[in-house]
């Protein structure tokens, strides 16, 4: 049974220094507010996992929360580079960032294996690319029936996965819809999970393309309206494309970044 908690409580309880943490979301439903709370609570040495680390991971990395990043595409979608990510990889600022790099297909299947209680997944992937030269977690596997050689990747089982969803009911059942990416897999693969939601309602009316996470598969739910901004929650908000574009200038310079984070994240208390 999921507990209904405040965002601060949820992060304090579920996210520890040194954890492997996945804040998933495929452009849609990215849990920005939870990422900001992790920054405010000054978590350190996190192994951050995500298919598409974008602005919120740029912020976590720039604020020194991460020691390692496991990912498949690290950019500001439609805009360009993540400058804090690049600064950490290229110049080790504010701390060196170790990276483990995959393709989307590989990462998605790693979550699927994690959610399935399997130690690995099989795919047609990475073939011919230079990724296996630098990522140890990619190995060949032979089909026991046909002899064909395919690719294996190990399961991903984050210590904690955080996602944002449209709604939960008072029992803690979670409902999301629209583009739901790998959110279900990332939650089921994790040892612990925290879901921030736009709304807590009496009952969840079914919606097309819904993904429902039963309360017994989630640890904690926190009410955080707008918790995915500048990403969006279909039916509740639209993507703030302008913010993503403005992030390029904000994040290019270490000081500008630091000032922005102070004003917009550190000095903000969501639960005040």
């Amino acid at each position, binding site marked *: 049974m999921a507990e209904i908690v405040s965002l601060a409580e949820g992060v304090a309880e579920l996210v520890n220094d040194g954890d492997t943490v996945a804040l998933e979301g495929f452009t849609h439903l990215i849990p920005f507010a939870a990422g900001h709370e992790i920054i405010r609570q000054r978590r350190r040495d996190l192994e951050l996992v995500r298919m598409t680390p974008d602005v919120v991971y740029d912020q976590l990395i720039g604020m020194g929360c991460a020691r390692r990043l496991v990912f498949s595409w690290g950019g500001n979608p439609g*805009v360009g580079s993540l400058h804090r990510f*690049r600064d950490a990889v290229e110049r080790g600022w504010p701390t060196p960032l170790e990276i483990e790099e995959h*393709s989307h*297909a590989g990462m998605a299947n790693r979550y699927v294996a994690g959610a399935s209680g399997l130690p690995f997944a099989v*795919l047609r*992937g990475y*073939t011919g690319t230079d990724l296996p030269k630098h990522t140890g977690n990619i190995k060949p596997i032979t089909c026991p029936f046909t002899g064909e050689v395919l690719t294996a990747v190990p399961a991903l089982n984050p210590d904690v996965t955080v996602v944002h969803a449209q709604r939960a009911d008072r029992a803690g059942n979670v409902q999301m819809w629209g*583009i739901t*990416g790998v959110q279900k897999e990332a939650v089921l693969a994790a040892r612990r999970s925290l879901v921030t939601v736009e709304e807590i309602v009496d009952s969840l009316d079914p919606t097309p393309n819904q993904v429902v996470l039963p309360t017994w598969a989630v640890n904690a739910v926190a009410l955080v309206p707008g918790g995915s901004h500048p990403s969006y929650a279909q039916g509740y908000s639209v993507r703030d494309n*302008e913010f993503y574009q403005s992030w390029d200038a904000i994040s290019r310079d270490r000081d500008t970044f630091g000032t922005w984070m102070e004003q917009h994240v550190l000095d903000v208390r969501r639960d005040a």
Partner: protein
Amino acid sequence: MSQDWTSDEMMTVAAARQLRNGSACFVGIGLPSTAANLARATHAPRLVLIYESGCLGAKPDRLPLSIGDGILADTADAVVSVPEVFNYWLQPGNIDVGFLGGAQLDRYGNINTTAIGGDYANPKVRLPGAGGAPEIAASCREVIVIMRQSPRTFVERVDFVTSYGYGSGPGDREQLGLRGAGPQVVITDLGILRPDPSTRELVLTHLHPGATVEQARAATGWALVVADDLRTNEPPSEAELTVLRALKAATDADRTVAAG
């Protein structure tokens, strides 16, 4: 002759023309998305756009900024999970065309979107990385590449193979067991390159109106071979330009509203 269109517009139009009506196209964001949406709005109304966010058959009336914009889910025939789009739709070879961009491309159509210069651990420029591209390049029946041409981007050998083209030449793709045919055409702001059937090397087959072989050679980091029957592309038609500009205007208007 003064042109009333830009080389970027010509590139987008030439890319759109490559897409056949009724085919299914796995679309990356940026130039590929613009060209694919132009094709759908002109000669290929039944072009099926597939975005890696899980939107199958998206029909946006403006250009999405990201592969996960709400307009894609709202207009899609089906929205599926990200594992499903890769495992059930891309991997078995159900997608006709993979439409990719890149930061570096080499003479054998290998693409780099990972890192440039230095070494992997300490690159000069760290790029976003692979995303869906390696498996799009491997599994789609064919691949179309769209990239602005320059000596910095069209290189002898990519610094990092993110997406496999023809490797080091004939037979490499087959030896790896890749099922798709690989890059069949590369559209640039100067013209079109296609792999030579025997050497697999990218060869200049078309120039855009106004572009020259000398420009193309100067913008290529390897000794560019020019096809014997080099042709010149049709300039953008009035209709193509009108639709392309309307798409961009709708997109800009939408962003201004969103930003307002």
